[in-house]
């Protein structure tokens, strides 16, 4: 199968969905003229015209709230924020408008909105490097996806655009350049709410999110060489969250490590831990291990950033500890 990058996969999904459905539009800061600061939407303005692909003012509230208004009235807007961190700048529009307008109005409207959020620490400090999925996983009414590879990036974005609900789509900046096989075909979708078993195994369940998936797979490989069979689960979508797949795996392995680029306290691993304690307590034979950022903002300098970020080694060590 052909291999393309994660960024190309996102771009392909946008192009196909915009071709398929004239109600899909794309806007955000620098997405048209420049093709996005990560150049993911390069060329789209020329393909679809500047009514459907346009540059916006630096106005995150108006961007996201405008997306809600456009979605309420029949469009399927895809809004790009330059950095996922700017979700906070549009906090009301994301949590209370996108997440609750439908509910508060008794289901009178649907909100088919996608907010594209480039996430992940890349040496740019506390306000441009977060993976803030867990904040929004707590908010009712929002769907959340975090693809870890090009095929999922494409298939999940297409599903997100076709979904009738607001979806926060987290694209990890460090994954943009990664290559992978991506099936062709305009109706190849990846459903929201279905985890992927990235590697099968019997001894330990390792849940990894977004850019942690490749690192988890490497750690699993190292552990395999040492005789441990690790099952790597990539939830792919955090809302809806495929609890079943994780619970089933843990029933088999009895051990769980969660690797994520969130802050540890109330990161995704907290929900996984609590869920297992509710639904699979009798199967757990070792304590939970969460590999995450130790509740500090993300520092800028490389040595500091490396200290707080989860990585292959930390994942490996956490697994080792449980397998010992």
């Amino acid at each position: 199968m052909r291999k393309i990058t994660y960024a190309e996969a996102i771009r392909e999904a946008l192009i196909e969905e915009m071709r398929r459905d004239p109600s899909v539009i794309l806007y955000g800061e620098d997405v048209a003229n420049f093709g996005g600061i990560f150049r993911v939407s390069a060329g789209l303005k020329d393909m679809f015209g500047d009514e459907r692909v346009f540059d916006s003012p630096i106005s995150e509230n108006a961007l996201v709230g405008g997306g809600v208004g456009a979605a309420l009235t029949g469009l399927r807007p895809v809004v790009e924020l330059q950095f996922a961190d700017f979700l906070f700048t549009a906090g009301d529009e994301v949590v209370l408008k996108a997440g609750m307008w439908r509910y508060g109005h008794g289901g009178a409207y649907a909100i088919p909105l996608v907010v594209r959020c480039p996430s992940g620490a890349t040496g740019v400090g506390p306000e441009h490097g977060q993976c803030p999925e867990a904040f929004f996983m707590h908010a009712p009414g929002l769907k959340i996806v975090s693809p870890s590879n090009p095929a999922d990036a494409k298939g999940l974005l297409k599903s997100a655009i076709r979904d009738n609900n607001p979806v926060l789509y987290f694209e990890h900046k460090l994954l943009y350049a990664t290559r992978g096989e991506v099936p062709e075909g305009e109706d190849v979708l990846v459903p929201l709410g279905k985890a992927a078993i990235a590697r099968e195994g019997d001894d330990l369940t390792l849940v990894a999110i977004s850019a942690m998936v490749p690192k988890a797979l490497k750690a699993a490989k190292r552990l395999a060489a040492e005789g441990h069979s690790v099952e790597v689960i990539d939830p792919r979508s955090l809302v809806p969250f495929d609890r079943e797949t994780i619970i089933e795996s843990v029933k088999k392995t009895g051990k769980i490590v969660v690797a994520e680029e969130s802050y540890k306290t109330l990161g995704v691993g907290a929900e996984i831990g609590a869920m297992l304690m509710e639904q699979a307590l009798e199967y757990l034979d070792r304590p939970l291990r969460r590999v995450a950022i130790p509740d500090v903002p993300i520092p800028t300098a490389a040595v500091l950033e490396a200290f707080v970020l989860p990585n292959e080694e930390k994942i490996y060590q956490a697994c080792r500890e449980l397998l010992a």
Partner: protein
Amino acid sequence: MDKKLKLEIYRKMLLSRRLEERIAELIKAGQAGGFMHPGVGQEALQVAAIAALRPDDYLLYAHRGVAYWVARGIPIEKILCDLAGKEGGTNHGKGGVMRVVYPQLGVLGESGTLGGCFPIAAGAGLSIRVKGEDKVVLCFFGDGTSNRGTFHEALNLCAVRKLPVVFLCENNGWAVSTPTEKSTAVKDIAMRAAGYNVPGKTVDGNDPEAVYDAVKEAVDRARQGNGPSLLEGKTYRLWGHWVGDPEDYRSREEVEKHWRSDPLPRFEEKLAGEKILTEKIKAEFEAEAMATIDRAVEFSRSQPHPKPESALDDVFA
């Protein structure tokens, strides 16, 4: 404004006033089951502005009163059901009377956070523009709300993309207990239009004709693709911020002074002077209003509460 329209505006102002009086009674008697920011005194502005819309235009009303809905033609009984959180309303108890919604007439709903409406209005304008329609969005907001950052972002976005949105400020002199001049750096909210290079106009918000003309002009302009406008009607919040507000933050004299420019008797006198409104018509309107309200109260009383477990519905489509 022709005679028929004048009478229609008067009729709806009257109906709105009577409805709010009834709602206040119900609330005070503990029989409404809901919470309300009354709009008494602001009906001229609300009804006349909405009269300038087409049925397929979009409306984002503000949090003050019932006249927006009455003006738009949403059945009164639905409003009362929403107030009481009953079935038979527009949002099935989910949002209360602060979130009346009516897609058939482009009524998009309300943001619980003030100023949440501005980006939504811009987005609806974007839709119209992308789909090549000739609809218009009318977005009401209060003087206090004009200080939210979303006002700025949405006005600018609408202006640069020439979106068909008319922003209409109901400047009633107060935001809860805070007088406009203590919270707002300009005397006329419409002066803020200069920051976005769009037309700005202040009118007497208690004069339905002035309001209608200004809104009509801005709506036409938007419909023709010439972009947004910022309008302001000067009016006054004759009642408290909510039913039950002690109002110990403003003087009785001030309030009484403004009762003397209550838009309802003022318009009544004007139409009587113009021989448009006769005592007979007036009596008919009053009777009709009372009958409609009585029926609606009855209807709402007879309606069931939503099923408790329906609280879990409508999160996702």
